[in-house]
C-alpha cells in the first residue's frame, strides 16, 4: 500500500463538486507530506494522526471557497502547519510564533568543520545509523528553522511557496533555510568525523 504516490493534476472543479474519487485522489497525493509535516512538528504519531484528520476535514470543508490564489499544495500545507503549531502550543502551554525574528548572531553561520564526506560509502547506502543521526540533527533544529527546511528541501516547495505557507517574506525564508542547511551540514560533518576516528 505504501508505494510512491504518482502525482497527477487534481481537478479543482470536481473537488468543489464533492466528487469522491477526486477527493480520494487529493488525500492520496497529500497525505504523506501532511504526515511528515505533522510528525516533524509534533514528534508523536498519536498527535500527528489527529492533525492529519483535522487538516483534511478542514480542506474538504473549505474547498468550495478555495480561490486558487495559491497552489493547492501551499493551501493544504498551510492548514497542516497551523493545525500542528496550534496543537504544539496547546501541549506546551506557551506561544511560539513562527514569524518571530531569529537571532542570527554574527559569525554564527560560518562553517567550522571542513571534511569532504560526500563519497563515503555510508552516504551512498544511507545506512540505519546515518538515518538516526539525520533524524536527530533535524529534530534538534529550532522549530522555526526546521519547518522552513522541511517545506523547501524535503517537500520541494519553492521559496515563494514556503513563504506563503508560513506567512513569511522570501528573504526570511532564505535566511532561515541557509541557517538550517548549515547547521545540518555541520552536524553531519561531526558525525562523519566521529565515524572516521572510530575506524
Amino acid at each position: 500500500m505504501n508505494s510512491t504516490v504518482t502525482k497527477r493534476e487534481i481537478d479543482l472543479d470536481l473537488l468543489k463538486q464533492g466528487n469522491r474519487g477526486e477527493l480520494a485522489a487529493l488525500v492520496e497525493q497529500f497525505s504523506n507530506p501532511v504526515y511528515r509535516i505533522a510528525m516533524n512538528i509534533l514528534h508523536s504519531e498519536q498527535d500527528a494522526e489527529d492533525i492529519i484528520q483535522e487538516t483534511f476535514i478542514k480542506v474538504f470543508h473549505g474547498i468550495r471557497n478555495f480561490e486558487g490564489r495559491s497552489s493547492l499544495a501551499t493551501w493544504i500545507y498551510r492548514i497542516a502547519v497551523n493545525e500542528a503549531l496550534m496543537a504544539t502550543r496547546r501541549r506546551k502551554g506557551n506561544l511560539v510564533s513562527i514569524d518571530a525574528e531569529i537571532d542570527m548572531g554574527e559569525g554564527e553561520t560560518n562553517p567550522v568543520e571542513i571534511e569532504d564526506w560526500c563519497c563515503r560509502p555510508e552516504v551512498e547506502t544511507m545506512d540505519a545509523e546515518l538515518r538516526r543521526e539525520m533524524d536527530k540533527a533535524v529534530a534538534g533544529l529550532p522549530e522555526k528553522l526546521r519547518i522552513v527546511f522541511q517545506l523547501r528541501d524535503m517537500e520541494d516547495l519553492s521559496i515563494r511557496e514556503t513563504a506563503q505557507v508560513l506567512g513569511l517574506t522570501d528573504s526570511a525564508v532564505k535566511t532561515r533555510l541557509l541557517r538550517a542547511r548549515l547547521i545540518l551540514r555541520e552536524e553531519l560533518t561531526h558525525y562523519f568525523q566521529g565515524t572516521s576516528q572510530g575506524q
Partner: protein
Amino acid sequence: MDHDNCSELLKSIEDYLDGDIQPEVCTRLEEHLRGCQNCRIVVDTLRKTISLYHDEACQEMMPDKMREHLYMELNLLDYLPGTRE
C-alpha cells in the same frame, strides 16, 4: 572574492544552491570555488546534506493503519488504495 574572506561566499551560497543567482556573481563564485578547496567542500557537503534529507523524506510514508483511519474518518474507505478492484 579572495581567499582571505571566504565568508563572503556565504552571502551568495543560498542563491547559488537554489540556482537563482546573477550570472556575474555565479562566475565570481565558481572562480573562487575552483581555487578554494575548503569552500568547495562546504558547497559539496551542503548539496549532499540537502539531497540526503530529500531522499529520506521521499521514503517516509504514513503508516498503513493511520491511512486506513484517515480514509474511514473522511468516509472514503472504499477508495483506500489496495482495496479497490
